[in-house]
């Protein structure tokens, strides 16, 4: 490994050469992976608050039975755009941001392999979401057909927002594809000498596999939205039975993208907690190579399980059994991962810093989400659970307490590396505990609501669901407010605080901790040596 002295001289050397632009131009023209990573992270947080505000509208309407705050059409717009923003605007860009910041530093590369492409893939994102959000103010409202935009809801019965939706998704897709290509090219070509594939940190591995998934399925999403576009406006009949099409085919193509997409949002989370748990357990990760193979198997299986979203479409028995068994098979590599994390903690010298708290909460709560996923995988019971709040509970457990909690774990873990200061520990603990309690109040009762038969995507409900919905809404408001604590922690941490050392956590390993904190603008211009 290189020593800090070498880097300090490197750094001074940079300062002589660097013509750093100032003001807005610095951010518009930057090709620096750290700048772009920061922009991705800020953008995703803004989108997170935007989508969160829509969730607040949903929960306010559902606080009590009856229609009181918004009309049903606007309610549907809220659920649709909330889903789109959280998936494509919050979770995915946050992961890309972490990838941009950390991957070059973890593999000892000076920057991403395609820095200009990197700049472009970030800067088209705000336009995509402006188009999507603009649809609220133009015509008869935003998309209201659900984030899954099933035909014919998005074609024949569209409220006129389909074009906004399609072009926004096209741009998001292009951005994701370019980001993914960049990650793959960087990892394949820019690793420091001596860093073989099986020496890469697991964080890098999970992003590597995720990027491959993105390259494979985002074009399919682009294709299916294009078909929706031409069906709606240009008279084609891909999904219209009158012209020989088939609306069920929409679901096949969409979920062929959609299921790998689910893993795109969770595999990087596995990478993050596989970094934090060993650090705070002060033990190396248990079963590194089994983790790599488990990640790859999950990615492979994600391509052959899509129709488990469609058990109620009248598939033949053989199809239902095939997709049921393949889906249950995914529990095996996922189980390998969960047991490896537990085994890493086993007899470790564990300390409970905030990143570790989020990581442990991730392991427990993600597993709950995984188990409800197994329940949904069973064809016979899925007929009861399909399109109920049980599904809503399931995917919020994997995406909020799974993906989002892992992002928080990663953010707290690397904040000192990014800012050079330690975050406010007490405030971060408040953030964790408030989030943990409120998120369970928010999502756990949804399981019972779903089992009792409350359908998803409705603005009103039967009276017997009133009590649970009230508690869920209270949990929702509390969870929403708790996230503002995080904003406060980050702003405080950027403005100052206790200085962080190069290696913030005594148990941390990895090249990113060999450079000073805050990480200098340019790192590893001379590649480090890996033993």
């Amino acid at each position: 490994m290189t020593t800090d002295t070498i880097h300090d001289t490197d750094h001074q050397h940079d300062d002589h050469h660097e013509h750093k632009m100032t003001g807005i131009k610095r951010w518009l023209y930057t090709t620096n992976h750290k700048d772009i990573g920061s922009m991705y992270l800020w953008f995703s947080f803004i989108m997170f608050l935007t989508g969160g505000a829509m969730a607040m509208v949903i929960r306010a309407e559902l606080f009590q039975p009856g229609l009181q705050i918004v009309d049903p059409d606007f309610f549907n717009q809220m659920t649709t755009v909330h889903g789109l923003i959280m998936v494509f605007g919050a979770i995915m860009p946050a992961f890309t941001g972490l990838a941009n910041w950390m991957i070059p530093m973890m593999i000892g590369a000076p920057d991403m392999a395609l820095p200009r492409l990197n700049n472009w893939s970030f800067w088209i994102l705000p336009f995509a979401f402006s188009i999507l959000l603009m649809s609220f103010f133009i015509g008869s409202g935003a998309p209201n057909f659900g984030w899954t935009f099933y035909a014919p809801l998005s074609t024949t019965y569209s409220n006129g927002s389909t074009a906004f939706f399609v072009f926004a998704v096209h741009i998001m897709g292009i951005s994701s594809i370019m980001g993914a290509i960049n990650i793959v090219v960087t990892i394949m070509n820019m690793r420091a000498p001596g860093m073989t594939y099986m020496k890469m940190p697991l964080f890098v591995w999970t992003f590597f596999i995720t990027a491959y998934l993105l390259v494979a399925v985002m074009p399919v999403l682009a294709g299916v939205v294009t078909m929706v576009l031409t069906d709606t406006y240009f008279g084609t009949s891909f999904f219209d039975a009158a012209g020989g099409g088939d609306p069920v085919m929409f679901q096949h193509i969409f979920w062929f993208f959609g299921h790998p997409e689910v893993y795109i949002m969770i595999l990087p989370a596995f990478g993050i907690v596989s970094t934090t748990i060993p650090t705070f357990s002060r033990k190396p990760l248990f079963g590194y190579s089994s983790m790599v193979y488990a990640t790859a198997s999950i990615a492979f299986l994600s391509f052959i399980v899509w129709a488990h979203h469609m058990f109620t479409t009248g598939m033949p028995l053989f199809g239902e059994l095939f997709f049921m068994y393949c889906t249950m098979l995914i529990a095996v590599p996922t189980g390998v991962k969960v047991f490896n994390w537990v085994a890493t903690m086993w007899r470790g010298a564990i300390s409970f810093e905030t990143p570790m708290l989020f990581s442990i909460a991730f392991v427990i709560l993600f597993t709950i989400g995984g188990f409800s996923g197994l329940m949904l995988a069973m064809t016979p019971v899925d007929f009861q659970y399909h399109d109920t709040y049980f599904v809503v509970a399931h995917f919020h457990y994997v995406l909020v307490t799974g993906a989002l909690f892992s992002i928080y774990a990663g953010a707290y873990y690397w904040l000192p590396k990014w800012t050079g200061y330690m975050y406010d520990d007490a405030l971060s603990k408040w953030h964790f505990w408030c989030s943990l309690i409120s998120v369970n109040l928010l999502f756990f009762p949804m399981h019972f609501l779903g089992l009792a038969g409350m359908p998803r995507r409705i603005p009103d409900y039967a009276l017997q669901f009133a009590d649970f919905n009230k508690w869920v809404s209270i949990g929702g408001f509390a969870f929403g407010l708790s996230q503002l604590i995080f904003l406060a922690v980050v702003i405080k941490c950027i403005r100052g605080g206790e200085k962080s050392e190069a290696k913030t956590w005594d148990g941390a390993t990895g090249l990113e901790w060999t450079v000073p904190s805050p990480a200098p603008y340019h790192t590893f211009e001379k590649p480090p040596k890996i033993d």
Partner: protein
Amino acid sequence: MAQVPEQNIAKTAKKLVLVVFAMFGFGFAMVPLYDVFCDITGLNGKTSDTAAQVNENGVDESRLVTVQFISHLAKGIPWQFEPMVREIQVHPGETKIIKFYAKNESVKDIVGQAVPSVSPGQAALYFQKIECFCFNQQPLKANEDVEMALQFYVDPELPRDVSTLTLSYTLYDITPKADS
């Protein structure tokens, strides 16, 4: 960045761009693939759109199959459209004729097209139409009505666990696209 193999980067990036285009094409390739797959297996309940020959495999007198008829109007077609018989019982192999009634209730001339679908899907391959109004477009002048015939038989090869077939017709307004 002198030590970085620039040409390798370009090579990897080009390969990935190819994959992107291939997968975009694959999304569209799924459309014909899906049709072929469904034609072979009958999974999506689509019946054959060409006339079947008269049954030569004999009649299976040992069992009766219930055939139900339902009709739907697609959005925006101002017609009345319903089966004149809701349900009949047939022996597999036996040829039957039933009629659907359609009336254009608007003041415009409209061309309609009925699209059939059979449930359960796996029975679709065994539902044979010798003559069907769904093979042709049906133009109706304002206020005109018509009785449309369907001549069919259920293939004796129909799996024995299927005792009820539902044939559903959805009627679409295809005036703008109709053959003149």
